[in-house]
């Protein structure tokens, strides 16, 4: 097994006249919970999209679970998953139909059993016959999480996983994700604006600014380095320290 779950090597992404990511290099260990922080336009969405193979980098190399994401994308995709409140599942399908469809798409063996287990664990059994479009934002997020766990991913990429959840559900989600990581030695890589969540969950924090890595360390190390009591203060220090180096685009 490769030691690094994610490896960015001098990755650049330019869109015509805009540089969204300007030479990013970092790596995330297997089994880590890592956060990607950055202000609006810092390049987070572009970076996540490149990690998932939705966007091709202008230059540089991205290795995911030991494979080159540019050349071996379809070997990697069955082993990773993605969840975002900004991407939806088909509205007219029921929760059960959505999960069954994605289970088949990922080639999940014993799909029925897996779907039932996730529905039970994420407290969705009572809504399994309801259409996805009729659910509350919190329920949709849990269904999306269930979808993203169908293939038991080794790497789970999360874009603001608790953005639309009430504090109780968000807390449950964080606990569930950490438990999943512990039980499966999976790697979690999440973009988040919730600094408390990042402090609680993450072993490693990557701070992006204007398309570059401004800092990377464990949360406690960042607090010590910047002499701050919270990650939010660290984030503000980094965000307000300099003018952007390049015009960023997300």
């Amino acid at each position, binding site marked *: 097994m490769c030691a690094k779950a994610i490896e960015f090597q001098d990755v650049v*992404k330019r*869109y015509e006249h805009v540089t*969204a990511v300007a030479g990013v290099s970092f790596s995330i260990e297997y089994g880590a919970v890592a956060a990607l922080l950055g202000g609006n336009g810092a390049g987070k969405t*572009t970076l996540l*999209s490149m990690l*998932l*193979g*939705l*966007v*091709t980098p202008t230059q540089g190399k991205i290795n995911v679970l030991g494979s080159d994401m540019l050349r071996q994308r*379809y070997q990697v*995709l*069955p082993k*990773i*998953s*993605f969840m*975002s409140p*900004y*991407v*939806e*599942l*088909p*509205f*007219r*399908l*029921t929760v059960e*139909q959505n999960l*069954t*469809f*994605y289970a*088949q*798409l*990922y*080639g999940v063996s014993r799909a029925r059993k897996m779907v039932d287990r996730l529905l039970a664990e994420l407290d969705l059994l009572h809504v399994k016959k309801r*259409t996805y479009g009729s659910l509350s934002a919190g329920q949709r997020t849990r269904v999306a999480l269930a*979808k993203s766990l169908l293939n038991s991913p080794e790497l789970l990429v999360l874009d603001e996983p608790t953005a639309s959840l009430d504090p109780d559900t968000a807390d449950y989600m964080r606990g569930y994700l950490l438990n999943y990581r512990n039980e499966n030695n999976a790697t979690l890589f999440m973009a988040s604006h919730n600094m408390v969540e990042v402090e609680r969950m993450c072993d490693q924090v990557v701070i992006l600014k204007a398309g570059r890595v401004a800092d990377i360390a464990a949360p406690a190390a960042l607090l010590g380095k910047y002499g701050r009591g919270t990650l939010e203060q660290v984030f503000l220090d980094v965000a307000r320290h300099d003018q952007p180096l390049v015009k960023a685009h997300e």
Partner: protein
Amino acid sequence: MDQVKQSLLRIFAIHRRHYYLMRGSWPRIAEMFYWPTVQMVMWGFMNQYLTQRAEGVYIGAGMLIAAFLLWDVLFRSQLGVSLAFFEEIYSRNLGYLFVSPLRPQELVLSLLSIAVLRTGLGVGVAAWLAIPFYGFSIFDLGWALVAFFCNLIFFGWAIGLAVVSMVMRYGMGAESLAWALVFVFAPITGVYYPISVLPQWLQYISWCLPPTYVFEGLRELIGMHTVNMMFLSYALVLNLVYVAIAAALFLVAFRAARQRGLLLQIGE
């Protein structure tokens, strides 16, 4: 072999998704049958009127109904491809689809096969209803009907893939092409009249289009009861070229969308 099996499973997964969608939405089911049936009824009456009243005008038994039904095969085929793709855009689901193991070529095959099923069902019901309504059965055309159907399905695929490629490149602003683009072929492929009525220069263009051979062949079959094998062969060869170009266009558009970061923004 295992890869082929996995690939087929993913294609059937997309089928399953669309089956669920249709099963839970009666307007979608109704739409599939409504227009072919309404149009068949209208062209049936037109056919009856011209047959009985229009002296000096030769309208073979059921010629207009057959022409309409086959035209609708072309129209529904391209619409089937486009709509199956648009459903993913409408539901903002493309982001999850494109990070799943589903490959672009599997998505293409899913769209094409869904289009065949939708077309077969929609036009099939209208064709069946023409029997009690007008005493005309397009199924009497025999195996030639299968050849006509396949050729029109293939050309519909090519147009549908071209439309989807345009939408990937230009966003949903290009959505209206799904309803409009195919109609540019109606006047020049001789759906309802022989292409000999067209100006000579336009006829050269017509003979480059597979549906022209189908509709000319249909007139020959109904009028003279002969199957023009040459026409069917030309149509098939041309279709192979058009479908290959359209599939390449889709893959190029997909690659360009990845480079431009458009895959998550297609619906906007």
